[in-house]
Structure formats: structure tokens, C-alpha cells
């Protein structure tokens, strides 16, 4: 299968010189689902931000859907990617549920009728029908997470970057989110999570990050290898 994400010799350091990771390689094929685990501070979220062109100071090569990461291609790359942030409050910045879900579509200059139709459809799909006019800041944490997911799903991207999609959710909400993600069969997914059960269900490949590098890249069987996980400080 064709690689939709191709990362070569990628390094990133903070402005103070602290190295986050060095010379990492990563490939994700079309439709593949990859889970990333690693201790806090290993650079997992930073990696996702680099893949979406949200951080532009790096060394190495990033190619998304055949487009190299540079100023010229960033708008095109972002159209291909749907990024779910760890904290839904980072992603919810408009007053109503409708405004939040429609934000990305409006930036694509889609007609008003199409936007309304798509937003209504996606809200019905995620189980929040008739929530268009509700103030987003009056929703529960789980509902805000669902609205964040809806705002990404509605863009119909080819690649999903999901940062801790199941964190801080109750059992039911977690199950619902996992169900929605598992239905995204045609698209490539990179999922950062400490929820190994969710990764077992959703991913075919696991990457372990730590000590400024990729410690493991391979089969998801590793998630049940406690000795190896301990060795990776997990």
C-alpha cells in the first residue's frame, strides 16, 4: 500500500536546546491505524503537531500525501488531516455547537446549505441531534469531546491524528468514541493513548517513543509484553 505519511530523520528540540527526539523515521500507509505510546514528555503530541505543520521548526523530512512539509503545501496538508486535540477546550472556541463544528467547513468556503446539512448529519451521527444551538461551554466534558471529534469528522480528512481520544471519559463515553474511531476504516490514523485496551482494538501497528527516539515499531502484541514495556519505562 502507498505511504500517506513519510517521515525521515526527523529531529525536534525546544528553543532552549532540550532534545525531544532525534532522527526518527515513520511511515503510515493509506488506511493504516498506528498507535503511539510512550512516557509523558517523549514528544508524542509534538510529533503530531509537526505532522500537521503546526510547529515549523524541525530538521528532517515530512511528506504527507505526497506533499513535502513547507509553507506552500501546509494549507493542502491541513486539508488532508483531521487533528483531535487532547483537551476539547482547546478545540472549542466558538459559542455554539454549530459554530464549532462548522468552523473548518466555513474555512473551506463550502456553501451555507451544504455546511448546515453536513453539521446536522454529523451531530446526528455522533448522538448529539438538535444540539446545534446549544452553547458549547454548557456541555459536559464527554459531550465536548464528542463535539471536538465531530468538528474533525465533518471535514472528511484522509488522515486522523488523535491525541488521547479516550482520556478523562467515563466508560460509556469511552466506548462511544472507540466505536466512532473504529468505523473510520478507509482513513489512516495515528492515535496517541495511554489506553492500551483501546489501542488493541483500534490499531494494527504500535510505536513506542522514549529516550529521544523510537524504541519500537511493529506488531500490537507488544502491548501485552509487560517486561518490554517496563524496559521502555511504561
Amino acid at each position, binding site marked *: 500500500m502507498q505511504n500517506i505519511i513519510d517521515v525521515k530523520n526527523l529531529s525536534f528540540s525546544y528553543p532552549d536546546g532540550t532534545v525531544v527526539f532525534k532522527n526518527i523515521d515513520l511511515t503510515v500507509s493509506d488506511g493504516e491505524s498506528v498507535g503511539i505510546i510512550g512516557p509523558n514528555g517523549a514528544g508524542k503530541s509534538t510529533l503530531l503537531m509537526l505532522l500537521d505543520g*503546526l510547529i515549523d521548526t524541525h530538521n528532517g523530512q515530512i511528506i504527507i500525501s505526497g506533499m513535502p512539509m513547507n509553507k506552500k503545501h501546509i*494549507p493542502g496538508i491541513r486539508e488532508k488531516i483531521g487533528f483531535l486535540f487532547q483537551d476539547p477546550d482547546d478545540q472549542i472556541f466558538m459559542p455554539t455547537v454549530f459554530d464549532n463544528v462548522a468552523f473548518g467547513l466555513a*474555512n473551506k468556503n463550502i456553501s451555507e446549505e451544504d455546511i448546515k446539512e453536513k453539521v446536522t448529519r454529523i451531530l446526528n451521527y455522533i448522538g448529539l441531534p438538535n444540539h446545534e444551538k446549544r452553547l458549547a461551554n454548557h456541555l459536559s466534558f464527554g459531550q465536548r469531546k464528542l463535539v471536538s471529534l465531530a468538528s474533525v469528522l465533518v471535514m472528511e480528512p484522509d488522515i486522523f491524528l488523535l491525541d488521547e481520544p479516550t482520556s478523562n471519559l467515563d466508560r460509556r463515553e469511552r466506548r462511544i468514541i472507540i466505536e466512532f474511531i473504529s468505523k473510520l476504516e478507509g482513513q489512516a490514523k495515528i492515535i496517541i493513548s495511554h489506553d492500551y485496551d483501546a489501542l488493541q482494538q483500534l490499531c494494527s501497528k504500535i510505536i513506542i517513543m522514549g529516550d529521544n527516539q523510537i524504541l519500537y515499531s511493529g506488531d500490537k502484541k507488544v502491548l501485552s509484553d509487560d517486561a518490554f514495556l517496563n524496559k521502555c519505562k511504561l
Partner: protein
Amino acid sequence: MHHSFWDKHSHINSIIHRLDCRVKIIVFTLLLLAIVTTPGQDLIRFLLFGTVIMLIIFLSRLPLIYVLKRSLIVIPFVLLIAFFIIFFNGTEVVSSFNIGRFKINVYREGLLVFQNVLCKSWLSVLCLLILAESTEFNYLLKGLEKLRFPRIMILVISFFYRYVFILIDQLDRMRHAVESRGFKAKLARRIKILGSMIGWLFISTYDRAERVYMAMLSRGFTGHIHSFRKFKIGQTDIIFSLVLLSLILYIRIGVF
């Protein structure tokens, strides 16, 4: 986040809400200009402007008590700026009283300045409140953009609107964290801790604001404001603006 957005009444269906945003911005700006250029001693004109504003509130179907309550936000600032002028500015003493050994005079000129500042600021805030509460925020920004308002200013307002809630939210969390640990201290230590809190507040909200901006970028934000409301100046807009502008002109330059 449990605070309300400023335009929470923007979905009411009223004649004022239905007006084209550009018409509203222009008419309210002219009303504001008329108010601030009215001579300070002209109480009758201020009363008439107040009546016009009440009429607009009535037409807009905004909750009167809510609007009046919110407009009182200006009072502390007016008191801070203009209250002491009553006692220091002028030559004609209207009244005097003693505080301990000190004799305090109340001057006529000072009272006029106070009345001037109070009326103008309160009426101006009422105008702005009606405009903000009766117009969806994005539509308002788009209206400003259509009126060729500088884009950088529109972006600043837009980000301020988004980030001010993050600031309040963060402040609430810090206050809860402090209160939950039974914080009690003398004034000097309180000030020191408050200083640290403000510093930390700015660092943490800066980080948060960065993430919100990234979330906007990741969904294709390029700095353009999008609104689903249509811009169309119709008969109602023309009639409303003509009636209101005539009233404003009559009150401002008419002889009473």
C-alpha cells in the same frame, strides 16, 4: 467553562436583530458620536437620547433588567475618574461639609463634569451593549470587515473574544486551587501570592491560547472571518436608519 458569551441574546428574533449588521454599526456609531459631542450641561438632550435607547431596547426584545445591570459595569470607572473632580474642580461652591478638621467643598463645575462623564459613558455603554447583544459576534466582525475596518483590528477583537474566556476560566481554576487549600494570609503575603498568581495566569493562558490557535489553524483558519448571515440592506434597514438618524439629528441640534 460555565460563563456566558457576550452575544448570548443574538438569536432573539426582533426587528433590531434582523437589521443588516452594517446599518446597525453605522447608526449606533452616529448615535454614539451624537452622545459624546453633546454639551455636558444639556441634561434634557441626555434624557432624550436615553429615551431613544430605551425604545431600541424595547424593539430589540432584549431583557431590560439584564441590559441595565450589565451597563452598570461602567459606574466604578466613572466614579474612579470623575467623582473626585466634584471636590477639586471649580470656583462656585454649591455645598460644603466637614470631615474631621477638613472642610470639603462641592463645586458646581465639578458636578457638571461628573454629570457629563456619567451620562456619556453610561449611554455609550448602553449603545454598545445593544449592538453586541443583538448581533451574532461573527456577523458583527464580518460587518466591520465589509465596512473596511482594519483587518488587524478585527483579528485582535476576534482573538480577544475567544481568549478572554480562557483567561477567566484559568483564573477560576486558580482561585479554586487556592481556596481549596484554605488560603489565609496577611495583606503583604496576599499581595505577593496574588502577584505570583497573575504571572502564572499569563504564562498558562499564553500556552492555552497557543493551543487554541493551533486548533484553529488545523481546521484551515487563514485569518478570514466567516459568517452565515447574509448581508442585504432592505426596506426595514432604510426606514429604521432614516427614522433613527432623524431622531438623533433632531435631539442633537434641535432647540429645547
